[in-house]
């Protein structure tokens, strides 16, 4: 089983991202589960959401304590929240940032990757909504979910032009991250 | 008689409960005074004031409990409450 934790701020679409990863993973043939860190969250407050992926049906209902992957939607969260908490040493932390991974030091051997998701979102979608962009980066960095599956899940959730633009942004983030991982 | 689900029953069960037996005082009309104003019929809590064909009223002594509301409210004092002989 692979476990993903997404850190964001209320209103940034962290919960939607977790859901869409679950939808996309299932389309790929995996079993999946997505849930928010249930709270009385407000816009701007730190939030978390989780996705589990497995080859067999998922029965576990506890929160995620030792994630394989962490996605950080907003780098300013790193000062407020221990985003690396519990991550496996074999894991990967994907951060939305214009800076190189070397700029981020965590008390963990997990791999750190960065992608300037805000820039990609502004260029393509026209708004700084980074959740879908980071899903593209996640696909490239982890190979857990096919980028087409993610794009399809996003297009189904947001039909029309918005979905198309998001799919384009996902593709962009995917190819940029693929280059970085070579 | 067995209990139906939730005790649902046919309507009109109060008809079998003849409350006239509760009465201590019996209302009597003085038709010389009665103006057919209908107030007694409207106020009777037991629907025991029945209109006749001539427009005057009779009491339904099967159900009248003798509460005296009609006599108390009659504007021309046309109703007298007399002690039941038991």
């Amino acid at each position, binding site marked *: 089983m692979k476990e993903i934790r997404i850190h964001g701020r209320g209103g940034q679409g962290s919960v939607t991202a977790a*859901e869409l990863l*679950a939808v996309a993973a299932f389309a790929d043939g995996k*079993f*999946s589960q997505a*849930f928010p860190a*249930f709270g009385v969250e407000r816009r701007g407050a730190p939030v978390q959401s989780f996705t589990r992926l497995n080859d067999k049906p998922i*029965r*576990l209902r506890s929160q995620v304590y030792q994630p394989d992957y962490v996605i950080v939607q907003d780098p300013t969260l790193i000062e407020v929240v221990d985003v690396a908490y519990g991550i496996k040493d074999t894991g990967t932390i994907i951060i939305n940032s214009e800076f190189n991974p070397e700029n981020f030091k965590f008390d963990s051997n997990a791999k750190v990757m960065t992608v300037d998701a805000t820039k990609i979102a502004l260029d393509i979608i026209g708004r700084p909504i980074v959740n879908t962009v980071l899903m593209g980066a996640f696909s490239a960095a982890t190979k857990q979910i096919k980028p087409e599956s993610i794009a399809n899940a996003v297009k189904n959730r947001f039909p029309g032009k918005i979905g198309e633009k998001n799919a384009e942004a996902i593709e962009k983030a995917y190819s940029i991250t693929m280059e970085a991982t070579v | 008689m067995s209990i139906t689900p939730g005790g649902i029953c046919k309507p009109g069960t109060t008809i079998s409960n003849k409350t006239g037996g509760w009465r201590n005082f019996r209302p009597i009309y003085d038709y010389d005074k009665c103006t057919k104003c209908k107030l007694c019929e409207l106020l009777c809590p037991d629907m025991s004031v029945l209109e006749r064909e001539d427009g005057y009223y009779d009491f339904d002594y099967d159900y009248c409990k003798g509460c005296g509301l009609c006599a108390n409210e009659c504007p021309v004092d046309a109703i007298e409450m007399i002690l039941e002989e038991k």
Partner: protein
Amino acid sequence: MAILREADKDKMTVVEGSYAVAHAVKVCRPHVISAYPITPQTHIVEELSQFIADGEIPNCAYMNVESEFSALSALVGSAATGARCYSATTSQGLALMHEVLFNFSGLRLPMVMTIVNRALSAPINIWNDQQDSISQRDTGWIQLYAEDIQEASDMIAQAYKISEDKDVLLPAMVCMDGFILSHVYEPLVLLEEDLTNEYLKPYETNYKLDPKNPLSFGAFADPSSYTEFRYLQQQAMDKAINKVEEAADEFKELYGRYYGGVIDTYMTEDADIILCAMGSIIGTLRDVVDNLRSNGKKVGLLKVRAFRPFPAEAIKQAVSNTSVIVALDKNISIGLNEGALLTELKSILYNTNLNMPVIGFSIGHGGRDIPEKTIEDIVQKAENVIKSGISHESEFVDLREDLI
């Protein structure tokens, strides 16, 4: 008895638990829905409102009301006309319905209500435990508890079948853990409309409010007959035990999915330790049982699906060869220091020749997470009971000593 899921992935889709439940309600063809939104039930009634607005539930009225008390009161009248009724609530909303719950069951009216289990105030808390539905234990409602969102949605159809059975005629609560199930996205088969048309026949009754054939509802019962009303309700609950089994069996036959009848058992046959619980914790317990079994520990799981009627005989059979029973309760009777399952388990075993120890743990209050490690620690304590007897019959789990 094993869980049976024909993992028909082609039929599955990934949706939120609340949507799955709302969809199941839709295909059960209700006539009247009345509910008042309250976290974490909100998504269910939002989805249903949308279905109604889109014309997807024909011949159905959604009654807007100003409180949960009114919602259920409105459904008393609706159900009396022979309408199939639905509501959903949680926590404070269910508490506010308390008085009407007795009216519903005493009038022997069928309906189904989803309880999205949540803790009660004070202190105010919107997260999951099962204090809300457990506190309505004696209201005469059937109570079923679901393990995952497939079961929570499929249980809607089963609950209507049980509730509307002529030998039962009692309202039913389908309980699902708040957030943990109501807000989770996972793959499931949305309740099939064609199969449900076959499974769930229209509700028919000889007793209904009808101006053309007037009847008196809500009759008065004085001391000469009130006892018999209660006796008849108890008889209906006794009959409901078999009806829960039949509803599950018929469901399995038709849909190919099965979650147990009044109970479900997992690895109990040779178990030294049997964990007993209700609701979404069952999934985590299955994983823990598998892990411990792979380490040679003989642990089993008893899932209670029907809390009312309480499946005393089925449980006695399931536990007859075990060394210790562990009740895990997301509720507590303050002043007795026991959760409901612990109390009921002890009570059904007394006066029998089964005298294995029963211990209980208060767990998951107000949304406190239940990691696998917590369960493993509980199993460790149960092993100690086998070795050296009971030291604590009932205790709180994962208490934060720093706050006390």
